């Protein structure tokens, strides 16, 4: 990988292993790199520990979505979904993966529905495909969006799926019936809308009562029961990923910082990171001793935060 390629690399998604000791990151060249957290976080870590223990080409095109289930790492880009075994990856083997049967153009996000062990895949054909994880059969299709889907989120308590897309609509689907329960057009609300950026929704996350969505419109906190926006966050730039953490909201997007926001709508702090624009943020909840936050973006560096307030070190592809 020459220096020019490194310069043009973008990290699109990350995923932590179920044991919490490894981090898998994917980039726009179709490669997946597996980093060992235990060695890079240990006190005797050197530069070599910040390099991946394994790098392999998983797909021909860029990989937009990575997801970890109990034993597998699922990766998807343009076309099929591949499943890699974490046990093999930890041993630095990349066996040929299991591939899904259906080819879906430009899969932007995948999410697992734990209730019925199925995978929801949102793609460029404006539909959400539901696949059964046991058998690999595609059970159903949720149709309704008029433009491609950017992001998916799961509302555990009610068993609903939320999807946000390029058409600016956030749709809430009931997982069992496959019908669209609600449709929120965020750009129609004056306080959220930013017409200069567009109406697309690129980040969506929920914790059953509240929902965060942003993209073209400003990042806003919605109360799902009343379907009304409660707080708007004054962040410049379009947000690409957001998450709830304790009493904070962490969000990344355009701009080289990770924003910490409070639920009331204030921006508490902006933590600078190395990539000039960030695509993905992930928090390791699977392990207690390697409890880190990692961010990746349009650079070959992945910043690791051991304390949320500052960057500890960077892993590089």
């Amino acid at each position, binding site marked *: 990988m020459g220096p020019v390629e490194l310069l043009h690399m973008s990290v699109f998604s990350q995923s932590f292993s179920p044991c919490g000791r490894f981090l898998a990151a994917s980039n726009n060249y179709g490669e997946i790199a597996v980093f060992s957290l235990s060695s890079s976080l240990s006190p005797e870590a050197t530069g070599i520990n910040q390099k991946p223990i394994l790098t392999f080409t998983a797909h021909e095109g860029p990989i937009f979505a990575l997801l970890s289930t109990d034993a597998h790492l699922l990766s998807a880009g343009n076309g099929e979904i591949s499943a890699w075994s974490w046990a093999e990856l930890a041993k630095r083997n990349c066996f040929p993966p299991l591939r899904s049967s259906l080819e879906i153009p430009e899969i932007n996000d995948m999410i697992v529905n734990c209730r019925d062990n199925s995978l929801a895949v949102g793609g460029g054909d404006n539909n959400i495909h539901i696949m059964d994880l046991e058998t690999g059969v595609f059970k159903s299709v949720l149709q309704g969006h008029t433009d491609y889907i950017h992001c998916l989120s799961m509302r555990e308590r009610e068993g609903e799926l939320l999807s946000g897309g390029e058409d600016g609509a956030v749709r809430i689907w009931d997982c069992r019936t496959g019908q669209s329960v609600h449709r929120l057009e965020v750009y129609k609300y004056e306080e959220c809308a930013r017409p200069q950026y567009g109406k697309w929704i690129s980040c969506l996350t929920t914790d059953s009562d509240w929902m965060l969505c942003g993209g073209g419109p400003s990042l806003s906190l919605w*109360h799902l029961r009343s379907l009304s926006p409660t707080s708007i966050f004054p962040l410049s730039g379009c947000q690409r990923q957001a998450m709830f953490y*304790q*009493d904070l909201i962490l969000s990344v997007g355009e701009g080289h910082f990770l924003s910490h926001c409070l*639920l009331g709508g204030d921006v508490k702090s902006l933590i600078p990171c190395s990539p000039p624009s960030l695509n993905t943020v992930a928090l390791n909840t699977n392990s207690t001793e390697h409890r880190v936050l990692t961010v990746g973006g349009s650079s070959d560096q992945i910043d690791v935060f051991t304390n949320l307030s500052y960057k500890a070190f960077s892993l590089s592809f």
Partner: protein
Amino acid sequence: MSDEVIRKRLLIDGDGAGDDRRINVLLKSFVKWCHSAAPEEGFTQYQRMLGTLAQCEFSMGKTLLVYDMNLREMENYEKIYTDIEQSITAAHEKIAECKKEILRAKRIRKNRQEYDALAKVIQQHPDRHETLKQLEALDKELQQLSRIKENVEDKLELRKKQFHVLLSTIHELQQTLENDEKSENDESQDSPMENGQMSIVAFSLYGETEETQPVVNKQVELADNVLRLTEERYLPVPYRTPGGGHPPGPVEQPECCVWASEFPHFLLNRVL
């Protein structure tokens, strides 16, 4: 064994200065003193040896004291060490407690902020009490208006009935006059039945039992009065109900007006 001893001695006093040298010098001077002949020199040497011996004893005493001191210092340090260990474990526990507290506080803060956010949205809607009061006021207004409407409708019914009475009276009178004319025209014909009918009708209408002619006169008088009242009150503005509603019975209305306007001349002509 002798290795150990040698190592220890070298460690303690390897360079040959200090106590070791003194003891060696003492031994040497003792040997020399034993071999010396002169008594005064022997005495000074003896004194000197005693001095050296005293020095040695003094140094030994000092060493013993230092040794004691070291032992006590060691104990002291042991004690401090255990104290520090305990406070370290106590601090660890406190840290764990505080971490739990902070998680709890963060959860509380999150709940408060969610509450605030919802409250902000709710504040934008109007107060429930005010809306209820407005609703009540509107209800009262509605009731009032419906009462007025009822009153007006009752009035309308009453007027309709009055007009009906008037019209039937007029019609009866007309009939009576026609009958009279007819009876006048063919004098042979006598129609006591009609008069009787007329009087029954008159009785039913006015509750009076009188002769035909005075009945007719009375009818004319009554009709005239009613007509005058009608002319005064209702003619200029024929039959308008408040609220601009349609007056019921459209057939009656124009008839009434027409009758009311034409009748006086008709009746007067007939009667006179």
